[in-house]
C-alpha cells in the first residue's frame, strides 16, 4: 500500500482539493462547504476504509471540527481509527496543533453541540493517551516480592520469636489491664480516654453540617421515598457500637448510604446522647468526635 507509506505529501499533491479546508472553512462547520470534509484525506482514508468495514463512516459535510495537518486531514474519529490500525504513525501527528486549533474553533462558535464536542474530547483524550504512551519510556513494574527477596533481611528475627514476644506482651497487657494510674496513661484505647472533652450539641451539629456539605458535593442524589425508622436506626447504631466498641461520629455518618440515612442516624445519635446511653467526646488533638456506649443497657446491668 504505497499510498499509506507516507501520507504527508498527499495533501500537497491534491493541492486544490483542501482549499475548502483552509482554516476558516474547516473551522466553521456551519458553512455548507461543498466539499466533504473527509475529501482531503481521501487518498489515504479511502484505501483504509475500503479494506476495513469497521472504519467510521466519513463525516457528513459541515459536521464538527475537522483536523488539517500535513499528515492527515479529516475528522478526528477517522484519525484515531487509522492510528489504531497503525495506518498512520502517531509521531507524525502534532497534538498541540490539534488542541490549539480546536480551542480556536470552539471559541468562534456561538452554539455548540454538547454531544459532538464531548465525543471529540473523548477521542482527543484517547489520542493524547496513545501518544504519551509512545513518548514515555516504559517502566518495568517491579515485583514487590522479588524486590523484597533481593534486599538483605538476614538480621531480622524469625517470626516464631516475634510471636513469642507477642505472647509475652499479651500476658503483660492482661496484667496491666487490672492496674490503674491517675492518668489514662496506660490505657491507649478509647474506652479509657476519660479525660477527653465531652462534646456539646453545637460541636455535633457543626461537624454534621460540615459533613453534609461534603456529602452534597459528592453526589446529587434524588431523594427516594424510602422510609427509615428511627427505632431501627437506633438499634443499628447500638449494634454497631457493641460490635465495634467505638465509633467515629463523622465516619459513621459518612458511611451512611444516603443523605436521609445520615440525617436519621444523626438524630438517633443525638437521642442516644441525650438518654445518656452513649457518650460523645472529642479528642482535642485530632478534633474527631468519638461515640461509645456508656455501659451495657442499664436494665441488664441492674439485673
Amino acid at each position, binding site marked *: 500500500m504505497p499510498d499509506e507509506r507516507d501520507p504527508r505529501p498527499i495533501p500537497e499533491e491534491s493541492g486544490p482539493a483542501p482549499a475548502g479546508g483552509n482554516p476558516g472553512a474547516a473551522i466553521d462547520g456551519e458553512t455548507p462547504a461543498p466539499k466533504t470534509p473527509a475529501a482531503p484525506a481521501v487518498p489515504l482514508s479511502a484505501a483504509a476504509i475500503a479494506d476495513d468495514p469497521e472504519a467510521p463512516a466519513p463525516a457528513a459535510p459541515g459536521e464538527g471540527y475537522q483536523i488539517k495537518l500535513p499528515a492527515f486531514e479529516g475528522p478526528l474519529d477517522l484519525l484515531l481509527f487509522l492510528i489504531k490500525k497503525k495506518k498512520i504513525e502517531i509521531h507524525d501527528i502534532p497534538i498541540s496543533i490539534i488542541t490549539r486549533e480546536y480551542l480556536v474553533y470552539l471559541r468562534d462558535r456561538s452554539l455548540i453541540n454538547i454531544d459532538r464536542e464531548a465525543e471529540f474530547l473523548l477521542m482527543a483524550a484517547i489520542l493524547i493517551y496513545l501518544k504519551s504512551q509512545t513518548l514515555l519510556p516504559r517502566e518495568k513494574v517491579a515485583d514487590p516480592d522479588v524486590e523484597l527477596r533481593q*534486599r538483605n533481611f538476614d538480621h531480622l*528475627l524469625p517470626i516464631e520469636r516475634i510471636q*513469642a*514476644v507477642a505472647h509475652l506482651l499479651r500476658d503483660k497487657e492482661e496484667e496491666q489491664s487490672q492496674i490503674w*494510674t491517675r492518668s489514662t496513661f496506660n490505657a491507649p484505647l478509647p474506652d*479509657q480516654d476519660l479525660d477527653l472533652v465531652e462534646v456539646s450539641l453545637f460541636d455535633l451539629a457543626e461537624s454534621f453540617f460540615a459533613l453534609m456539605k461534603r456529602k452534597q458535593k459528592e453526589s446529587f442524589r434524588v431523594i427516594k421515598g424510602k422510609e427509615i425508622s428511627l427505632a431501627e436506626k437506633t438499634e443499628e447504631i447500638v449494634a454497631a457500637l457493641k460490635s465495634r466498641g467505638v465509633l467515629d461520629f463523622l465516619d459513621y455518618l459518612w458511611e451512611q448510604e444516603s443523605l436521609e440515612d445520615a440525617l436519621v442516624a444523626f438524630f438517633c445519635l443525638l437521642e442516644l446522647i441525650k438518654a445518656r446511653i452513649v457518650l460523645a467526646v472529642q479528642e482535642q488533638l485530632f478534633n474527631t468526635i468519638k461515640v461509645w456506649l456508656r455501659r451495657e443497657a442499664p436494665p441488664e446491668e441492674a439485673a
Partner: protein
Amino acid sequence: MTDNLKSVIEALIFISVEPLTTDRIKEALPDAGEAEIEEALRQLIDDYANGPQAIRITPSAGGYVFSTKPEYDVPVRALLQIERRKKLSGQALETLSAIAYHQPVTQAEIAAIRSVDSTHSLHTLLENKLIKIAGRKEAPGRPLLYRTTDKFLAYFGLDSIDDLPSAEELKKLMEQGNG
C-alpha cells in the same frame, strides 16, 4: 533525714500524672545526694508494696508512678463505667513485637518478618501512640522508620525496652519451651 526525704519524694510522685523520672526528682531536690534519693525511693516503693494501701509505686517507662493494685480493678472500672478494657489484636501485637526488637524499623522489614501486610496494624498502633515515626531511612525510597514510644512501655508495664528478653534469651526461652 531519709524518712523526710521519703515523704518529699512521695509527694512529688503523687502530683505527677505521668511517670516521674529520678532525674526530675534530683532536679527538684538539689540538696539531696543522688545515692540518698535512690535509697529513699527504694524504701518508699517497698513500703507501699508491703503496706496495706490500695496503691503502690510502679516503675514505668523510666519513671515512677502511683497505680492501683490489681485487686481493685473491678471497683475502679465500675467507677469509670468501663465494662472491660480493649485489647490489642494479635496482628497489632505481632507488629508491635517486630518493631520493639528491630527499631528503628521500616514497614518493608516488618513485612519481611511477618510475611503479611502490616499497614492496618501500623495505623492502629500509631493512632494509639504505642509507636511513632522516627524519621526516614537513608535508603532507596527513604521509607519511614518506626519506634516504640514511652506509652508502649507504660502500657505493658515495662520500665525500659531492656525489660523485654534479649534475642538470645528469647532463643533459650523457646528452646526450653520446645524441650
